[in-house]
């Protein structure tokens, strides 16, 4: 038995364990989607609570106008929601753009909080804490500055939140507005649908577990007050706050009919930077919450911590090992001598991966085409490998940040002007 045998065995087990989990989650997500699609998702309330819609924005003048315009179109009672844009230490003309919006909509409750580099500029969590300090609503909704939510999104989220006292937050679905901008944005679109939305739906279906995606969600004000706001050190403030909600005994619901459209990176460097930030954030949250795996009182969140562990340790290591073994094998440096080791194992994994992703595309309107099969296969050999690079980069950065006691830096995703499907910087 050689090290190549041991690593191959480990990779095969790890990949198939993760594959099986994804198959199960996809089936659960599919059933949940079908169930929800049979309804309109609404649970009418006698009285709608006041909602503070918070939008943290840092140099977002390119997209903010469109975002606020979409927020103003919510079919939620206009006297029952306020829009709070935290213009966080922006150096562009965001302040002017926002002012103009306020002027144009005198009858709407739009609050703009402009921060300088002393109070602001410290990341999304800090911006949200600032916004929260002026928020009046008993329900807090969060949207990223590049979002254009559909009009019914807020009402759907709030109605579902108020339907059960045990629900701490309700998340919606987000779609890629600029999916045709580049091959990368196509990949991001597929990834978003398959591994963020469908996966979330599956986890909710089986375990009533979801992770807040950072945008298009509502949560109770009381919970934020109780947990003392957002953790400014967390780059993935969404995941971090999700775990805290679970620990309080609430659950998070997914309402896929509440849709927001957002702009995703269409250039590799921007994507790489954004995903590195996410990965670093998730690693931070994972380390912070790892101890809860062994805490029986932590409840369901243990499943989620375990899930993240599997993704960031099991999946990452197995992908690295399998690639090393494959390349070394092709070059003739190593030879795997496990009895029964066969390319069939990889072939089957590819088939399952493609079919699994195809399901999520089929269930969405205007997403499925037979070209997708090719795209998904291509994605497996390109985009997935990039993910490995992202996580390795994030790990290295996390370690160096820790060693040199550097504060985690929140890198804002660079936005682009979209015109009729084209994208301009």
């Amino acid at each position, binding site marked *: 038995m050689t090290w190549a045998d*041991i690593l191959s*065995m480990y990779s*095969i087990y790890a990949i198939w364990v993760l594959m099986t989990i994804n198959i199960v989650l*996809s089936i659960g997500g599919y059933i949940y989607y079908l169930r929800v699609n049979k309804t309109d998702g609404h649970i009418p309330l006698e009285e709608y609570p006041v909602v503070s819609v918070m939008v943290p924005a840092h140099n977002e003048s390119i997209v903010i106008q469109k975002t606020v315009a979409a927020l103003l179109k919510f079919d939620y009672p206009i006297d029952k929601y306020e829009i709070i844009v935290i213009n966080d230490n922006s150096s562009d003309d965001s302040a002017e753009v926002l002012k103009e919006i306020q002027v144009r909509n005198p009858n709407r409750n739009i609050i703009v909080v402009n921060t300088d580099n002393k109070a602001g500029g410290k990341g999304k969590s800090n911006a949200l804490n600032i916004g929260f300090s002026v928020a009046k609503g008993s329900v807090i909704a969060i949207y990223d500055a590049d979002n254009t939510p559909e*009009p019914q999104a807020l009402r759907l989220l709030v109605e579902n939140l108020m339907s059960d006292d045990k629900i701490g937050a309700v998340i919606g679905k987000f779609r890629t507005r600029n999916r045709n901008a580049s091959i990368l944005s196509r990949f991001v679109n597929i990834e978003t649908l398959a591994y963020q939305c469908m996966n979330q739906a599956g986890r909710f279906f089986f375990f009533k577990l979801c992770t807040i995606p950072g945008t298009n969600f509502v949560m109770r004000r009381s919970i934020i007050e109780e947990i003392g706001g957002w953790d400014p050190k967390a780059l993935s403030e969404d995941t971090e706050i999700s775990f805290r909600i679970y620990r309080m005994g609430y659950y998070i619901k997914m309402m896929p009919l509440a849709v927001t459209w957002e702009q995703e990176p269409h250039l590799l460097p921007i994507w790489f930077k954004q995903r590195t930030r996410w990965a670093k954030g998730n690693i931070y949250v994972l380390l912070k919450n790892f101890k809860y795996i062994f805490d029986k009182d932590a409840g369901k969140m243990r499943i989620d911590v375990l899930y993240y562990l599997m993704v960031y340790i099991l999946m990452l290591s197995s992908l690295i090992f399998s690639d090393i073994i494959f390349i070394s094998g092709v070059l003739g440096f190593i030879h795997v001598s496990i*009895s*029964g080791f066969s390319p069939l194992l990889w072939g089957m994994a590819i*088939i399952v991966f493609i079919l699994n992703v195809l399901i999520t595309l089929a269930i969405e*309107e205007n997403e499925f085409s037979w070209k997708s099969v090719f795209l998904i296969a291509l994605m497996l050999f390109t985009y997935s490998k990039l993910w490995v690079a992202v996580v390795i980069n994030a790990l290295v950065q996390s370690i160096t940040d820790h060693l040199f006691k550097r504060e985690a830096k929140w890198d804002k995703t660079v936005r682009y002007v979209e015109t009729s499907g084209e994208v301009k910087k």
Partner: protein
Amino acid sequence: MTYKRFAVLLWIFILAAACFPMKADASEEELEKTEILVVYNNNPTDEEMMGVQSIVKIITYLQHSIVFASVDESISDLDNYDSIICYGLKGNLDRFMTNLTEADKAVFILGSGGVEDYVTQKGYEFTCDRIINSVASVSYEFSEENKFSVLLNLEDSVLLNGQFNYVKGTITVANLTANLYSRYDNFVYMPSTDLSNSLMQASFTKEVAQWLWPFSGEPFSYAQYIVINEVYPFTPPEKLLEVVDYLIDLKLPFVISVMPIYENGEYPAMERLCEVLKYAQANGGAIIMHAPVINQEADNVKQIWEYLTIATVAYTNYGIYPLGIQVPERFMFSEINREIIQRYSTVFWYGESKEASINLTEQFNTIYKDGHQMIGTAIHLDELGNSQIKVHSTALYLDIYDGIDMIKDQIQACRQSGIPLKSLWDIDHKVYADNLYLHTEQGQVYFNSSKVSLDYKPFEYEENYNYHNAFQWIMFDLKGLNEKLVFVVAISSIVFVIFIIKARNINKRKFLFPKEGREDK
């Protein structure tokens, strides 16, 4: 090719076909016609069942079919058989003996019951001396140099005297001496029923083979195989090597029976054993697999096949190819055990239990139909394992722990017995396992239909082998995992395709019949 050359070749072919197969076929045809019946008492004792079992086993080794039935079961069917063995019959046998006489078949009577009636009704002019409860001295001569004697307890016996066609051995009891085996035409008589004794069993085997032989002269001679028995990975390799080298030096063919290994096949002990086995195999030795030790009655053939597959792979991984299986004789009499060994064309038998395992309700030696190449166990006539059985193939089992001197003496005795020794490589073998097929053709091994080499190269050993390898638990054959995954993937794929089609249909309906007030995105 010219016409003359073609004609010569054709003639050679015709002559060859005429000489070899026809001669063999004729003999076999004759043998197959011989349907044998062994008759036992209506309510047989355990001892009698053991006797019947011995007869059935011997007849099976002689490659004959045999039916076993009680007096009442067989009394009306005596006409259906060519040869009838009456074993230790007692009680009122008038009607049976009348029928037996009228049937006019070849008859072999063991024990005195009914012999006087039969002799009288047949009109044979023999005198019968009846002796009650005595000790008899029996001697039997296989050859001039191989004469053996034994004392037997006789409860109630009849000694026949007269003019016979053939006699062999003597029995002396109460100052009376008679022939141990007396033959007149197709009738053979032996006063004792004791087949538990080696000499009696060996002599009976020889005599019954002669009685069944349809031609003049002696039956075919079969070879003996030297088998180093029950070799485990923990068997000291130097001891095994010493015996192997001794046999190789004497240019004697030999077989090594290895114990099945189900796990830890990569341990150094196994490697060292396999190196000796590979060396033996490369120098004319053949390897067979010892049957797994099954403590309970086997009830799951598939599971045992799985284990045998694992055990076979544990050896084939080292280039060791077990050509047959060694099983206890009780496997002949159990349907499940017979099924277990169906995957092997060559079967070595060894005696194991002192209890009768024959199932009398089966009434037939079913194992005969399975067509194995059967090698019975040699019957030891002295402490050196001298065997005089050459009417069927036999195996002389050597125990490695007896020490090299004892083993040398046994091998010497075996060489002096006059029974030819044979290499297992001289016959073809077939072994089936799960996803594995091993066969030989004229000494060439084919593993899953591919030729394999039996060349020996010294092994390289890992120094400081770690017996507590942390990853050991995940190392197993992936074939099982592959099969399970193919099933899971097939089911998942079908489910996913159904999901995709259903989702597509829903989306098409939504597009064609949008809900009222729905915003077009």
